[in-house]
């Protein structure tokens, strides 16, 4: 589904990704772990098309096409979804309107009919249950005044509505208490499908107790330092990241 080859990316002239290779197949969950500043969030943002990051080398192929040639909205319309580490507040736009606009754009791109507000509401009832949210959240401005946990749940709600082929969760666990973490993880697990793939970017192993990855990759200084099965996450939990970090000057 996703083939990343020799990916280099920089922000403001500073190189953050320094040659990433990664293959993700349909039905798989991959965890990308690493210490702060290793480039994990950059990788997530580059895949979604954040304008601040410049890809300087390498290729990304998604469902047989050049992902990097697509605008962010085209990527979303073709099934790429990024759950933001810091979801953006948009005062004045209701969550309901935002979600439905987004849903209809994705449907249009798939050649499906747009839904009207009533049809959308009945769809929302089911989706809200997945993330234990009340419909009162739909009337509020997008993420405005939401608590940290509400923002993260709102991201998973969007994911549930858009049903992406490739979901990228960028530190969705950060700042969540254990109950909120369970809700988010349950949501992700319910949305699993043999046709879809998920990349979970996380600093801690904790989330991986609830979302069991097929593969774990450790990013260090912009490169994948090690890949393995889910037991690698446990090893990182026990030993930390230092043993994978090259000596200074090495």
């Amino acid at each position, binding site marked *: 589904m996703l083939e990343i080859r020799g990916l280099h990316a920089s922000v403001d002239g500073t190189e953050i990704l320094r040659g990433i290779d990664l293959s993700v197949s349909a039905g798989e969950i991959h965890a990308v772990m690493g210490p702060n500043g290793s480039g994990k969030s950059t990788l997530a943002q580059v895949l979604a098309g954040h304008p601040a990051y410049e890809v300087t080398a390498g290729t990304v192929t998604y469902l047989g096409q050049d992902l990097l040639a697509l605008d*962010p909205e085209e990527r979303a319309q073709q099934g790429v979804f990024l759950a933001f580490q810091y979801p*953006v507040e*948009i005062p004045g736009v209701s969550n309901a309107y935002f979600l439905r606009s987004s849903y209809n754009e994705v449907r249009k791109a798939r050649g499906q009919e747009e839904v009207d507000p009533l049809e959308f509401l009945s769809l929302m009832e089911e989706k809200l249950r997945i993330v234990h949210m009340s419909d009162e959240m739909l009337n509020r401005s997008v993420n405005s005044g939401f608590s940290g946990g509400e923002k993260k749940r709102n991201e998973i709600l969007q994911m549930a509505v858009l049903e992406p082929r490739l979901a990228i969760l960028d530190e969705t666990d950060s700042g969540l208490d254990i109950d909120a973490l369970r809700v988010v993880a349950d949501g992700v697990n319910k949305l699993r499908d043999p046709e879809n793939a998920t990349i979970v970017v996380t600093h801690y192993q904790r989330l991986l107790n609830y979302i069991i990855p097929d593969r774990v990759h450790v990013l260090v200084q912009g490169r994948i330092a090690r890949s393995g099965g889910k037991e690698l996450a446990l090893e990182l939990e026990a030993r930390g990241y230092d043993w994978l970090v090259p000596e200074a000057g090495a």
Partner: protein
Amino acid sequence: MTVQYYQQEFADFSRRRTGADPAWLAPVRRSAIERFAALGFPTPRDEDWHFTSVAPIAEKEFQSLDSAGGLVEPAAVAPFGFGEDDWPQLVFVNGHCVPRLSMPGALPRGARVLDLPSALREIPDLVERWLTTLASVDNAFTALNTAFFRDGAVVHIPASVELTEPIHLLFVADASAAKGVSHPRNLIIAGRNARATVIESYVSLTEGSYFTNAVTEVAVEEGATLRHYRIQRESSRAFHVATTQVHQARDSHFLSFSFATGAALSRTNIYTVLDGEGAGATLDGLYMGADEQHIDNQTRIEHAQPNCFSREVYKGILDGSSHGVFNGKVLVRPIAQKTDGKQSNNNLLLSDRARVDTKPQLEIFADDVKCTHGATIGRLDELALFYMKSRGIPADTARTLLTFAFAADVLQQIESVPVREMLERLARERFTGSPTEEPVGASAALR
């Protein structure tokens, strides 16, 4: 010199007014034209006009508009109304009231909505007591209006009367307004503990160049609540200068919304004096400029007594080469202890050529007060744009939605739903070129 032109016009005008004006008005007009002649048109050297040159107005000899012009059909003005049969509506064409286009609506007993000539006949004492007593002729445009006004609306809500339906005063310019000037003069009196909503709309049926010079005087008596919505949608080649001068008694509340999107050059002054303890003023506004438009908003809130509050939020959206101005003064007199004032002005620039000058001013002469103010000028939030795009929303739609959200935020202050919905629709049309029927704002319930 156009000042001399208006002085000559006044000589003719005052001869013709003999018999039409009450005796008290003639000397008021005379001293107003003298004041105008002494002041002349303001220049950017005047502090209050620093960012706005009125040369395009001062250089032209606008003809007095003597009649309501051609025959305007009800269907032509209908789109500017709210489609509510119960709402009293007075329609003025080129400054003259046209009863044929007006509607009495559902007015409670004792409440009056009259054109000025009728008010001078039917409630002369009340008109004499208030008219020309509030708005100062130290403003040259107010002086000019005072010298020349002929028509306008007089609204009187007697003590303890509560209006359920808003009153709409609709000022329309038609093709025969070209090169002409009208001086609408309005008077709104909300008696003790009265409650009412009055809407003033200024619109055009053509793209003509004309000049509207309006003055509205408002008295909000003890315990009364008055909502005042001002909708300025003049022709894109028109000039619009207006002053609303409000006087507030004890425990009164005046809530104003000023919506300005029309005219080549506009200047809207909203001034209030909180002249009784416990009074409050809420002044909000939205101005949207495009092309070469110049939109100036000036507010002044005078805290003249203790324990009063004021709240003010003005937002501006400037596109093309348009120029927005906000100048908001909050003046706290030495006696006005425990004043609670908040003011903000936020501007969104949609183009590199658009420009805004914002000048919030606090002048505080009392020591026990709580006053804040702030102003921002910015562009659309790139991160919010990316967030929306990452959800599949195309870049243009995302931009429109964010711009509209910026406007909707302040439009939510409008309590009257039909008014709010009309202004939301106008704002949407402004940014998309086409209306969408549906509310996007967070205030809008799921309908």
